């Protein structure tokens, strides 16, 4: 059998990243990046590589934005199994192997994304919220001016409050806040004022509370 393609997997990360996962990396997001790089790199000549990796990318992307469907994980497995079996080049083979390995090694995390809408590393935007730690906020108002969708309420001297319905999770506020007051939260939400109040007047600190409609 002649090979139709000599693409290598050098654009892809190494397998050990799956096993030595740092807490702040999300395996689903990591797999999305793998698929994205492979899709850019694919030469386009083989159906399973070209359309298969593209399909994998579309499915994982849907999973990260809360558009996953029942059966997606099985479909991802089938796709990566077949791509691996049919691989003509290192690129597609390695891509499939990475996805396949991630699916089995981190199945809990994949399931959490798909069925429980959770991203434990707080990376996938659909699955975390953004908050201002009321004990840290100095009321400098820099975050409000940098937020492009005006999701941060507050004025000089007030503890700022994020409206998560508007927030796009762009992260600009995290970068600008001199007090490092911004927090991401998954299931566990910090206690924050409902609306801006004077700096220093909210003293209860961060506490667990049930998210409305949440499972915990």
């Amino acid at each position, binding site marked *: 059998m002649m090979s139709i393609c000599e693409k290598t997997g050098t654009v892809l990360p190494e397998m050990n990243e799956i096993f030595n996962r740092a807490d702040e990396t999300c395996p689903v997001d990591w797999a999305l990046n793998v698929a994205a790089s492979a899709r850019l790199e694919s030469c386009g*000549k083989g*159906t399973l590589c070209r359309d298969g990796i593209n*399909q994998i990318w579309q499915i994982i992307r849907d999973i990260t934005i809360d558009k996953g469907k029942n059966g997606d994980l099985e479909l991802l497995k089938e796709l990566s199994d077949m791509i691996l079996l049919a691989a003509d080049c290192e690129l597609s083979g390695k891509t499939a192997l990475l996805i396949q390995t991630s699916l089995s090694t981190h199945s809990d995390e994949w399931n959490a994304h798909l069925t429980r809408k959770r991203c434990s590393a707080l990376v996938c935007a659909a699955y975390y919220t953004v908050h201002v730690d009321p004990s840290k906020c100095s009321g400098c108002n820099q975050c409000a001016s940098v937020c492009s969708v005006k999701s941060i309420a507050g004025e000089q001297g007030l503890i700022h409050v994020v409206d998560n319905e508007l927030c796009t999770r762009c992260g600009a506020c995290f970068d600008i806040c001199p007090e490092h007051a911004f927090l991401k939260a998954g299931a566990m939400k910090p206690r924050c004022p409902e609306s801006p109040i004077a700096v220093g007047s909210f003293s209860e600190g961060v506490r667990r509370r049930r998210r409305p409609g949440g499972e915990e």
Partner: protein
Amino acid sequence: METLNMVIDHIPVTAVAGQTILEAALAADIYIPHLCSHPNLHPQGGCKLCVVEVDGKDGLPVTACNTEARDGMTVITKSPVIDKMRSLSMELMLAGHPHDCTSCRSYLNCELQSLMQYLSATGVRMREVHRTAIGINTKNPLIDREMERCIQCGRCVRVCQDLRGVNVLKYKKKDAEAYIGTEEDLPLADSGCRFCGACVEVCPTGALQDREGVFRKDLPREQSLIPCQAECPAHTDIPRYVRLVKEGRYGEAVAVIREKLPFPHALGYVCTRYCEKGCKRTDLNEAIAIRDLKRFAVENDKTELWKARSKQKPSTGKKVAVIGAGPCGLTAAYYLAKSGHEVTVFDRNPKAGGMLAAGIPAYRLPRADLQKEVDTIAEAGVKIELNHPIENVGELKQDYDAVLVAVGAQSGKSIPLSGYELGCSLTAVELLRAAAFDGKTSLIEPGKIVTVLGGGNVAFDAARVSRRLGASVNVICLEAKDKMLADREEIQQAEEEGIRIYAGKANLSIEGSPGKVEGVKVIDVDSFRFEEGKLVVNTVPGTESVIPSDIVVFATGQKTDLTSEFGLELNKFGYPVLPSGGHSTSLEGVFAAGDAVTGTKAVIDGIVGGRAAASEIDHYLGGSGDISEVLLEKENPSPYIGTIEDFAQKVRSEASILGAEERQDSFRLVDLGISCSQADCESERCLQCDLRNQLKKVRLWNSYQYK
């Protein structure tokens, strides 16, 4: 040839060394689905539909299209893993493919659709893929690209690169989206495309299509793909001889032409060029100058190698008489003589050639060149009796086993016009014949004003001949200037020669007194149409005028001059009745063909009629009726056409034309033909439409025994 024994799905199969598993299976009538592979192309192994398991390696499928068959191999073409891989691959292709098969021009003629059926696959499990690169490069001449239907099998890329050597189509990426495109997304015409159509031919989907209207749909496909040849009534193998001209093999080119007709040189001067009207290159820029190339080939044929294989059958002892030494009669006589019959042609004119001699003026067709082709026919054993009118075909038949009536449509028609009785009128046919055989007519003298009625090529022949006899000339026709029936160059050259054209005018009457015509009264035409065969003209009231004239020439059609005394049953238009639908007439052993049967048509139509009649007569006389000849062994043209700089932009070569001053007073040849470098350039412009027929058709699954 080394043979291999293998077993495919428990069926013993003998394969040829070097074959792939797919080739071996298909040859043994065992179907293995396949899509990206094509019998004329190197396998790419991309679609994965052809996966099979080999030598018991279950669960480890290999692609059959690019795995070589080996002796002793066992192949399984169906298993759970195989099925899964095939389905998945189909589903992936369909995820990005439109669902509306019925609106596609390839509907029911699509390999993808047939495979969907075979694998019962749909794309529903998959995320729908929205593609954005499909809008690139959709506006091109001749080829429609509906790239939303493309499944990127790469056949077009491989045919363009590997088989054609043109290398226009490539796998490209727009961000992460793969698509089939050109360098810098240039339009095909600017990217070096040679419009060979191979990519369209091999595309298994509706993505690549021939532009609607480029090919006729009423013909078998292999014929319609070569429109020039399809349109030529003789079906001359035009791309073949054009290629031979390109190679400088003029003798070979003539042999190819002569396989279909015995008047290549005359046709090179005057053929009506049905072929050029069909030429596919017309839709790119301009048709190939096929007629000029034909003439060039004949005039540069130093070898006459067609003679070597010219067929001469042994004598049959049968005698055939042909009445009429025109293109039809002489053609029939030629092939009948070569079929072994003894043939005599009778013609009432002093020269052979029919309308080629009596009608077409010498400045369009030099008589020496015509005579040479007539001589060639005589050399084949045809006796030609000139100045020999035949009054009654029945009497003639008594001395012959068969008779062909090919008398043409030699009498001019005049339209009813008041003032005709004043005299000083003649038909174009009369004028042209007198000029051709006597060099003058009794009426036309220098200084006279001749007005020709009619707008076709014969009208222009009459006008330009009158001009050369010293007259001052008008042409009056019903059609507007841009709708005139004559060839564009005829009209242009006539005007250059000082001939005045009154287009869009209807004739009302000839004015004058007996024996002295003063002019033709005309009126402007607003519109005209034919209702149930009758001409209905709307004129513009108040626009009457008289065009001063001494002589009126009717170029308003021709008919046969057969009468009942001739001995054939005639229909109400005066044409012989052909009861069988072929060429045989009401008299046993008497046949009729050419203009005498069809009414005025082109020279090439007469030749084709003559061939058909010859075949029928040979059959009637006990022969096979096969007059076909192979004058040149079939070459195997290279599919690898490579690139040519600015191929799409190359303009048609125009023949050089003798200046108006030099030509208008003499019968010197007007069209001087094309030069050697022009012939080279012109033949290179050809799209070689015939090469497409070298590409094999893919057999669909339902035609296989094991599937």
